């Protein structure tokens, strides 16, 4: 992976060889991307080793080799597992409520005009301010985290489903109707296939929201779960385990995001043949 220029300079092989390497990197941006990531990690390593007190910042080499120590900490694997479970449940609930709600709002002009402003208003409010209320009502267990995740995940799903239903070209509906399709047939053969790409786009945005909501609630509750451990590691200046925990959660988020993004790309394929790009 590391085709660094310094290593190349010490090598006695002819210049054409390095030109080929440079050319190869130029044609493949992902190699340069990996090099940038490697450089960033190297900077972090240098900063943590020589510039910052190790109490505050642990070098990546130590974080990477201390994962076993992190997972051996009593309660950490259980907390991570609980978070993953909360994410899954919150996402599922968001989709199960958001999809029919989006359809109900988007399929009729009247309900669209009546309820869409309310949805946008709720979506626009900073929900973080009501996090203490969620904890108060649902306790410090998984229920409050799931509820807060749903409150973040549901609106993007509703809004994208509504947009997907609304963006169907009127001519398609008119022609279906003129050929004598009934309401169900129009839904099944016109609305439904047009909805699939936006549904998956909504799922992706919903997943982003669910991740934010669940993690916010997890970090807020400092007496149990992830929040307990981040608080404890911070107070003990245990930056190695803190960074290990953050990295694990970030990796979890990346995997979940990537999964729904792949699903979106897969199920949105047929749309690409159309002229207009899906918003």
């Amino acid at each position: 992976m590391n085709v660094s220029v310094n290593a190349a300079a010490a090598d006695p092989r002819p210049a054409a060889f390095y030109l080929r390497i440079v050319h190869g990197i130029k044609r493949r941006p992902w190699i340069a991307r990996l090099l940038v990531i490697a450089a960033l990690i190297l900077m972090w390593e240098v900063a943590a080793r020589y510039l910052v007190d190790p109490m505050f910042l642990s070098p990546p080499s130590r974080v990477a080799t201390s994962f076993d120590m992190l997972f051996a900490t009593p309660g950490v694997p259980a907390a991570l597992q609980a978070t993953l479970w909360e994410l899954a449940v919150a996402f599922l609930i968001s989709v199960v409520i958001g999809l029919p709600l989006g359809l109900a709002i988007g399929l009729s002009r009247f309900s669209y005009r009546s309820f869409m402003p309310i949805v946008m208003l709720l979506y626009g409010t900073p929900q973080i301010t009501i996090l203490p209320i969620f904890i108060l009502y649902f306790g410090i267990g998984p229920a409050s985290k799931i509820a807060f995740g749903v409150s973040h995940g549901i609106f993007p799903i509703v809004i994208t489903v509504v947009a997907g239903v609304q963006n169907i070209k009127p001519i398609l509906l008119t022609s279906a109707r003129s050929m004598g399709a009934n309401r169900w047939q129009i839904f099944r053969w016109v609305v439904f296939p047009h909805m699939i790409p936006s549904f998956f786009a909504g799922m992706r945005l919903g997943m982003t929201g669910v991740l934010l909501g669940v993690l916010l609630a997890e970090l807020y509750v400092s007496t149990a779960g992830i929040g307990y451990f981040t608080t404890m590691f911070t107070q003990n200046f245990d930056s190695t385990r803190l960074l290990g925990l953050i990295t694990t959660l970030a990796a979890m988020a990346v995997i979940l995001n990537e999964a729904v993004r792949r699903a979106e790309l897969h199920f949105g394929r047929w749309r690409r043949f159309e002229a207009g790009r899906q918003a």
Partner: protein
Amino acid sequence: MNDRGSRRDRLLSRLVQAAFVIGLLALWYLATTRWGVSHLLLPNPLLVWREFVDVLSSGEFLPDLAVTLGELAIAFLISSFSGVTVGYLISRSQYLIRVFEPLLAGIYSIPIILFLPLYVLLLGLGPASKIALGGTISFFPIVLSTIAGFGYVERIYITAARSMGATYYQLFRYVLLPAALPVILSGLRMGFTVALLSILGSETLASLAGLGHRIVHLAESMDMARMFAYIVFAVAIAALLNTVVSALEARGKRR
């Protein structure tokens, strides 16, 4: 559909919205007065209103608001300056765009709030950690939209301006900037919203002062009516700021 019918429809929609809001308030009121929901869980709306008026008239909110807005201003200044600069530099080469754009978008898809404990460890519980988090989170929409704005200007315009002998300054001032500005302004608005959210969020999670801290403090002392009043206040401030920023964005785009 004829005109009268659509007007009646619109009126009916407004009516439904009003009924929704009034119904919610009525439910809230009835729940606290008739159905005996504990006032520790749900305070009486009239009491909340009285507290809200008290918060406003006593000026008690000022120090917390000043802290929150100060953090927001510094964080947004840092992220907009660095985001536009870095985005512009990256956008100057198609190759750099292809290297950095997916990288930045990938990092942006991680919930950056995760790094708050690290920032608190490095910078303490004071405003510095909030500014750092707000700046980090809002950097990404700004840099991504700047890349999108400057990087995808139609080549034909650039070629035309060059062939007519435009200097680099002229090219930037009359071709690149007008083409990129609407996209950048959208990014700046998004960055502002995200910065506000993350600063309120980090104040809620770990802080010593600010609106988010005040709400948590009141929740922990179970002063529910005042907490609800502060939530209303914070939501109103956020709505006001977002409206102002959206108006500025629209104005900047019209020019």
